[in-house]
Protein backbone atom coordinates (compact mmCIF):
# COMPACT_ATOMS: atom_id res chain seq x y z
CA UNK A 1 0.00 0.00 0.00
CA UNK A 2 1.64 3.19 -1.15
CA UNK A 3 1.26 5.94 1.42
CA UNK A 4 1.14 9.70 1.00
CA UNK A 5 4.85 9.96 1.84
CA UNK A 6 5.76 7.72 -1.09
CA UNK A 7 4.08 10.06 -3.53
CA UNK A 8 5.50 13.18 -1.88
CA UNK A 9 9.06 11.83 -2.01
CA UNK A 10 8.63 10.80 -5.66
CA UNK A 11 7.40 14.29 -6.41
CA UNK A 12 10.32 15.84 -4.50
CA UNK A 13 12.81 13.77 -6.51
CA UNK A 14 11.14 14.75 -9.79
CA UNK A 15 11.12 18.42 -8.77
CA UNK A 16 14.83 18.32 -7.91
CA UNK A 17 15.63 16.71 -11.27
CA UNK A 18 13.69 19.54 -12.93
CA UNK A 19 15.53 22.24 -11.00
CA UNK A 20 18.86 20.61 -11.82
CA UNK A 21 18.03 20.62 -15.53
CA UNK A 22 16.85 24.22 -15.30
CA UNK A 23 20.14 25.30 -13.72
CA UNK A 24 22.55 23.28 -15.83
CA UNK A 25 21.10 23.02 -19.35
CA UNK A 26 22.25 25.44 -22.03
CA UNK A 27 19.63 24.64 -24.64
CA UNK A 28 16.42 26.66 -24.28
CA UNK A 29 14.21 23.72 -25.27
CA UNK A 30 15.94 21.60 -22.62
CA UNK A 31 15.14 24.24 -20.03
CA UNK A 32 11.47 24.21 -21.07
CA UNK A 33 11.47 20.40 -20.68
CA UNK A 34 12.88 20.76 -17.16
CA UNK A 35 10.09 23.19 -16.35
CA UNK A 36 7.56 20.61 -17.56
CA UNK A 37 9.10 18.08 -15.14
CA UNK A 38 8.62 20.56 -12.29
CA UNK A 39 4.97 21.16 -13.28
CA UNK A 40 4.42 17.41 -13.23
CA UNK A 41 5.90 17.03 -9.77
CA UNK A 42 3.58 19.76 -8.49
CA UNK A 43 0.67 17.94 -10.11
CA UNK A 44 1.60 14.66 -8.42
CA UNK A 45 1.58 16.53 -5.11
CA UNK A 46 -1.84 18.06 -5.81
CA UNK A 47 -3.41 14.74 -6.75
CA UNK A 48 -1.80 12.84 -3.87
CA UNK A 49 -3.00 15.36 -1.29
CA UNK A 50 -6.42 15.33 -2.95
CA UNK A 51 -6.66 11.57 -2.58
CA UNK A 52 -5.19 11.15 0.88
CA UNK A 53 -6.30 14.26 2.78
CA UNK A 54 -9.68 15.14 1.30
CA UNK A 55 -10.89 12.43 -1.06
CA UNK A 56 -14.48 13.62 -1.51
CA UNK A 57 -14.29 17.03 -3.14
CA UNK A 58 -11.33 16.61 -5.55
CA UNK A 59 -10.04 20.17 -5.22
CA UNK A 60 -6.48 19.04 -5.92
CA UNK A 61 -7.45 17.39 -9.18
CA UNK A 62 -9.24 20.55 -10.34
CA UNK A 63 -6.12 22.56 -9.53
CA UNK A 64 -4.11 20.07 -11.55
CA UNK A 65 -6.34 20.69 -14.54
CA UNK A 66 -5.60 24.41 -14.23
CA UNK A 67 -1.87 23.72 -13.87
CA UNK A 68 -1.89 21.60 -17.02
CA UNK A 69 -3.67 24.38 -18.94
CA UNK A 70 -1.15 26.97 -17.74
CA UNK A 71 1.72 24.61 -18.62
CA UNK A 72 0.37 24.28 -22.16
CA UNK A 73 0.20 28.07 -22.49
CA UNK A 74 3.73 28.41 -21.10
CA UNK A 75 5.10 25.83 -23.51
CA UNK A 76 3.47 27.53 -26.50
CA UNK A 77 4.82 30.99 -25.64
CA UNK A 78 8.24 29.69 -24.62
CA UNK A 79 8.73 27.70 -27.79
CA UNK A 80 7.60 30.68 -29.89
CA UNK A 81 10.30 32.74 -28.18
CA UNK A 82 12.87 29.99 -28.87
CA UNK A 83 11.92 29.90 -32.55
CA UNK A 84 12.15 33.69 -32.74
CA UNK A 85 15.58 33.71 -31.07
CA UNK A 86 16.82 31.07 -33.46
CA UNK A 87 15.55 33.00 -36.45
CA UNK A 88 16.99 36.36 -35.38
CA UNK A 89 20.24 35.38 -33.68
CA UNK A 90 20.83 31.79 -34.86
CA UNK A 91 21.30 30.47 -31.31
CA UNK A 92 19.22 28.44 -28.90
CA UNK A 93 21.70 28.57 -26.03
CA UNK A 94 20.52 30.57 -23.08
CA UNK A 95 23.95 31.67 -21.86
CA UNK A 96 24.59 33.46 -25.14
CA UNK A 97 21.42 35.49 -24.82
CA UNK A 98 22.43 38.40 -22.63
CA UNK A 99 21.55 41.38 -24.80
CA UNK A 100 19.45 42.93 -22.04
CA UNK A 101 22.23 42.63 -19.46
CA UNK A 102 24.66 45.49 -19.06
Amino acid at each position, binding site marked *: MATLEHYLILSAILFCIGVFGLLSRRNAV*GILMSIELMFNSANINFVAFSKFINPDILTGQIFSVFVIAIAAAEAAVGLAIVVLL*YRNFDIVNIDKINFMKW
Partner: protein
Amino acid sequence: MELGVFYILAAVIVVSGLLVVTLKNIFHSALMLILCLFGVAGIYILLHADFLAAVQVLLYVGGVTILMIFAIMVTHQLTGKKIKHYNEQPVPAGLIILSLLILLIVSITRTAFEVADKAEPMPTVAVIGRALMTDYVLPFEVVSVVLLVALIGAIVIARRD
Protein backbone atom coordinates in the same frame (compact mmCIF):
# COMPACT_ATOMS: atom_id res chain seq x y z
CA MET B 1 0.68 -5.27 -5.44
CA GLU B 2 -0.10 -1.57 -5.46
CA LEU B 3 3.25 -0.81 -3.88
CA GLY B 4 5.03 -2.84 -6.54
CA VAL B 5 3.28 -0.95 -9.33
CA PHE B 6 4.15 2.30 -7.59
CA TYR B 7 7.83 1.40 -7.40
CA ILE B 8 7.93 0.39 -11.06
CA LEU B 9 6.28 3.65 -12.12
CA ALA B 10 8.53 5.67 -9.80
CA ALA B 11 11.62 4.00 -11.24
CA VAL B 12 10.43 4.76 -14.78
CA ILE B 13 9.73 8.39 -13.87
CA VAL B 14 13.01 9.00 -12.04
CA VAL B 15 15.24 7.26 -14.60
CA SER B 16 13.59 8.90 -17.60
CA GLY B 17 13.56 12.26 -15.81
CA LEU B 18 17.29 11.97 -15.15
CA LEU B 19 17.83 11.07 -18.79
CA VAL B 20 15.78 14.14 -19.83
CA VAL B 21 18.22 16.45 -18.09
CA THR B 22 21.44 14.55 -18.88
CA LEU B 23 21.21 13.17 -22.42
CA LYS B 24 23.44 14.84 -24.98
CA ASN B 25 20.97 14.80 -27.84
CA ILE B 26 18.02 17.09 -27.12
CA PHE B 27 15.77 15.01 -29.39
CA HIS B 28 16.41 11.92 -27.25
CA SER B 29 15.62 14.06 -24.22
CA ALA B 30 12.22 14.86 -25.74
CA LEU B 31 11.52 11.14 -26.25
CA MET B 32 12.50 10.44 -22.64
CA LEU B 33 10.18 13.27 -21.57
CA ILE B 34 7.32 11.41 -23.28
CA LEU B 35 8.16 8.26 -21.30
CA CYS B 36 8.34 10.27 -18.07
CA LEU B 37 4.93 11.88 -18.71
CA PHE B 38 3.43 8.45 -19.38
CA GLY B 39 4.78 7.35 -16.02
CA VAL B 40 3.13 10.32 -14.34
CA ALA B 41 -0.15 9.35 -16.05
CA GLY B 42 0.27 5.90 -14.51
CA ILE B 43 0.74 7.53 -11.10
CA TYR B 44 -2.53 9.41 -11.63
CA ILE B 45 -4.31 6.14 -12.37
CA LEU B 46 -2.79 4.68 -9.20
CA LEU B 47 -4.24 7.68 -7.33
CA HIS B 48 -7.73 7.02 -8.83
CA ALA B 49 -7.58 10.18 -10.95
CA ASP B 50 -8.85 8.75 -14.23
CA PHE B 51 -9.82 12.07 -15.84
CA LEU B 52 -6.41 13.59 -15.09
CA ALA B 53 -4.62 10.57 -16.51
CA ALA B 54 -6.54 10.99 -19.77
CA VAL B 55 -5.84 14.74 -19.81
CA GLN B 56 -2.16 14.05 -19.12
CA VAL B 57 -1.86 11.69 -22.07
CA LEU B 58 -3.90 13.89 -24.41
CA LEU B 59 -2.43 17.28 -23.51
CA TYR B 60 1.12 16.55 -22.38
CA VAL B 61 2.08 13.50 -24.38
CA GLY B 62 0.00 14.44 -27.41
CA GLY B 63 0.35 18.21 -27.28
CA VAL B 64 3.24 19.72 -25.39
CA THR B 65 5.92 17.20 -26.29
CA ILE B 66 4.93 17.23 -29.95
CA LEU B 67 5.23 21.02 -29.82
CA MET B 68 8.69 20.63 -28.32
CA ILE B 69 9.74 18.16 -30.99
CA PHE B 70 8.56 20.65 -33.60
CA ALA B 71 10.65 23.36 -31.96
CA ILE B 72 13.68 21.05 -31.87
CA MET B 73 13.22 20.26 -35.56
CA VAL B 74 12.93 23.96 -36.44
CA THR B 75 15.97 24.99 -34.40
CA HIS B 76 18.05 21.97 -35.25
CA GLN B 77 21.76 22.56 -34.89
CA LEU B 78 22.60 19.71 -32.57
CA THR B 79 23.41 16.54 -34.45
CA GLY B 80 26.90 16.04 -35.79
CA LYS B 81 28.32 19.10 -34.12
CA LYS B 82 30.44 19.11 -31.01
CA ILE B 83 28.79 21.61 -28.70
CA LYS B 84 28.62 21.81 -24.95
CA HIS B 85 25.29 20.85 -23.50
CA TYR B 86 25.88 22.21 -20.04
CA ASN B 87 26.82 25.60 -18.78
CA GLU B 88 29.60 25.93 -16.22
CA GLN B 89 27.40 25.31 -13.18
CA PRO B 90 26.30 21.64 -13.12
CA VAL B 91 28.49 20.78 -10.12
CA PRO B 92 27.32 23.58 -7.78
CA ALA B 93 23.78 23.09 -9.08
CA GLY B 94 24.00 19.38 -8.32
CA LEU B 95 25.25 20.01 -4.79
CA ILE B 96 22.53 22.55 -4.06
CA ILE B 97 19.84 20.31 -5.52
CA LEU B 98 21.09 17.34 -3.50
CA SER B 99 20.86 19.33 -0.28
CA LEU B 100 17.40 20.59 -1.29
CA LEU B 101 16.31 16.98 -1.90
CA ILE B 102 17.60 15.85 1.48
CA LEU B 103 15.83 18.78 3.16
CA LEU B 104 12.56 17.94 1.38
CA ILE B 105 12.73 14.24 2.22
CA VAL B 106 13.53 14.90 5.87
CA SER B 107 10.69 17.40 6.20
CA ILE B 108 8.25 15.07 4.41
CA THR B 109 9.09 12.08 6.60
CA ARG B 110 8.97 14.10 9.81
CA THR B 111 5.61 15.75 9.13
CA ALA B 112 2.53 13.98 10.43
CA PHE B 113 -0.15 14.36 7.76
CA GLU B 114 -3.78 13.90 8.74
CA VAL B 115 -4.63 11.18 6.30
CA ALA B 116 -8.35 10.69 5.80
CA ASP B 117 -10.06 7.33 5.85
CA LYS B 118 -9.76 5.34 2.70
CA ALA B 119 -12.44 6.41 0.26
CA GLU B 120 -13.89 4.14 -2.36
CA PRO B 121 -12.43 4.78 -5.81
CA MET B 122 -15.06 6.53 -7.86
CA PRO B 123 -15.24 7.93 -11.39
CA THR B 124 -14.05 11.52 -11.14
CA VAL B 125 -15.21 12.96 -14.46
CA ALA B 126 -18.71 13.91 -13.30
CA VAL B 127 -17.46 15.43 -10.04
CA ILE B 128 -14.77 17.49 -11.78
CA GLY B 129 -17.17 18.63 -14.48
CA ARG B 130 -19.76 19.71 -11.96
CA ALA B 131 -17.15 21.55 -9.87
CA LEU B 132 -15.75 23.33 -12.92
CA MET B 133 -19.22 24.54 -13.88
CA THR B 134 -20.31 25.64 -10.39
CA ASP B 135 -17.66 26.48 -7.79
CA TYR B 136 -14.75 27.03 -10.15
CA VAL B 137 -16.53 28.60 -13.11
CA LEU B 138 -14.67 31.92 -12.82
CA PRO B 139 -11.14 30.38 -12.78
CA PHE B 140 -12.25 28.07 -15.57
CA GLU B 141 -13.26 30.97 -17.80
CA VAL B 142 -10.15 32.95 -16.87
CA VAL B 143 -7.87 30.05 -17.71
CA SER B 144 -9.57 29.61 -21.07
CA VAL B 145 -8.95 33.29 -21.83
CA VAL B 146 -5.32 32.89 -20.69
CA LEU B 147 -4.89 29.94 -23.03
CA LEU B 148 -6.40 31.89 -25.93
CA VAL B 149 -4.19 34.92 -25.27
CA ALA B 150 -1.09 32.73 -24.95
CA LEU B 151 -1.76 30.94 -28.22
CA ILE B 152 -2.45 34.19 -30.11
CA GLY B 153 0.66 35.66 -28.51
CA ALA B 154 2.73 32.67 -29.60
CA ILE B 155 1.53 33.10 -33.18
CA VAL B 156 2.29 36.83 -33.11
CA ILE B 157 5.76 36.29 -31.63
CA ALA B 158 6.77 33.55 -34.05
CA ARG B 159 5.23 35.14 -37.14
CA ARG B 160 7.55 36.07 -39.95
CA ASP B 161 6.79 39.66 -40.90
